[in-house]
């Protein structure tokens, strides 16, 4: 940390249009919220202590699992509370300015991109769409009702091996086609859509494999997507495939590029 010993700083959660500043709650997730306005955009922020959020302490706190989880949840909860009554462009975790003037300068520097991002998310919410597959069930569902009883010797063994390889390949093809179809069908109801890397099993803790991890930007009445997912889920139930819709979320996935402005 530099020698300038300011006590506090502004932690910015995200940005709303100045015209909606009155809709921002005064408290959320246990934190008092301040609105710092610069022209057409206003940051939703909290005053935080530099003892906790100064560069050195922050680096240490990022290594503290409980601290990080607690503050990541608070970040999200504040955004959700704001999103309940205003359109909000989320900042990534840990956007901190020393003073309100610095924060206003930051907003002015990026005004054009932030206004564009607010325009993009206006009246919309983010949904997550995930597809999970129970691979053993899928293979069983795809396997021909067969001479599985072949012995593990000689020709029977080789045939069984080939059959297993064929089933694995069939399952992969099935999943690839499925992912494409689900994505296309849900994205058709969205203003924008992105595919993120599926979360690995070590992190999800689930027995099924995640094969699609998509995010959609949709009108806040998201029934079209949910209905589409219900139809697909019904059709796929027998294949060990589960579809999941998460959210509504603040539009984390659709504000990227707001900092690209030269």
């Amino acid at each position: 940390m530099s020698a300038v010993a300011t006590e506090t700083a502004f932690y910015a959660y995200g940005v709303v249009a100045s015209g909606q500043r009155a809709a921002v709650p005064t408290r959320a997730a246990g934190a008092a919220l301040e609105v710092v306005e610069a022209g057409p955009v206003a940051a939703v922020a909290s005053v935080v202590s530099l003892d906790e959020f100064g560069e050195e302490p922050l680096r240490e706190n990022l290594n503290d699992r409980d601290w990080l989880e607690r503050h990541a949840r608070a970040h999200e909860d504040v955004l959700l509370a704001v999103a309940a009554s205003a359109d909000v462009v989320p900042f990534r975790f840990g956007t901190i300015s020393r003073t309100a003037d610095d924060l206003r300068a930051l907003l002015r520097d990026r005004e054009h991109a932030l206004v564009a991002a607010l325009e993009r998310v206006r009246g919309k919410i983010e949904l997550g769409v995930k597809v999970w597959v129970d691979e053993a069930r899928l293979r069983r569902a795809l396997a021909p009702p067969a001479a599985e009883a072949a012995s593990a010797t000689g020709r029977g063994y080789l045939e069984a091996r080939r059959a297993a390889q064929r089933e694995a390949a069939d399952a992969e093809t099935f999943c690839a086609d499925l992912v494409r179809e689900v994505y296309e069908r849900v994205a058709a109801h969205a203003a924008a859509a992105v595919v993120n890397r599926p979360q690995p099993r070590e992190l999800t803790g689930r027995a099924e494999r995640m094969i699609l991890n998509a995010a959609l930007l949709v009108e806040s009445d998201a029934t079209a997507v949910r209905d589409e997912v219900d139809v697909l889920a019904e059709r796929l139930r027998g294949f060990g495939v589960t579809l999941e819709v998460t959210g509504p979320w603040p539009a984390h996935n659709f504000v990227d590029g707001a900092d690209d402005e030269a």
Partner: protein
Amino acid sequence: MESHHPALRSEVTLVELVDRVLNKGVVVTGDITLSVADVDLVYVGLRLLLASAGTLDRFANEAVAA
């Protein structure tokens, strides 16, 4: 908690949270922020998740027990 979406809260798993709050959103870089702009939050998030998945905990517990 004063979230306006109480029903959502229990659904927000840590992996979802990390996927969005640490990995996404507008990234502001430059002199004007103290921020963690030069810290790889994707990596920090991954470490958090691995810790919660029990991988790091196990090592930590073994270290304490030793």
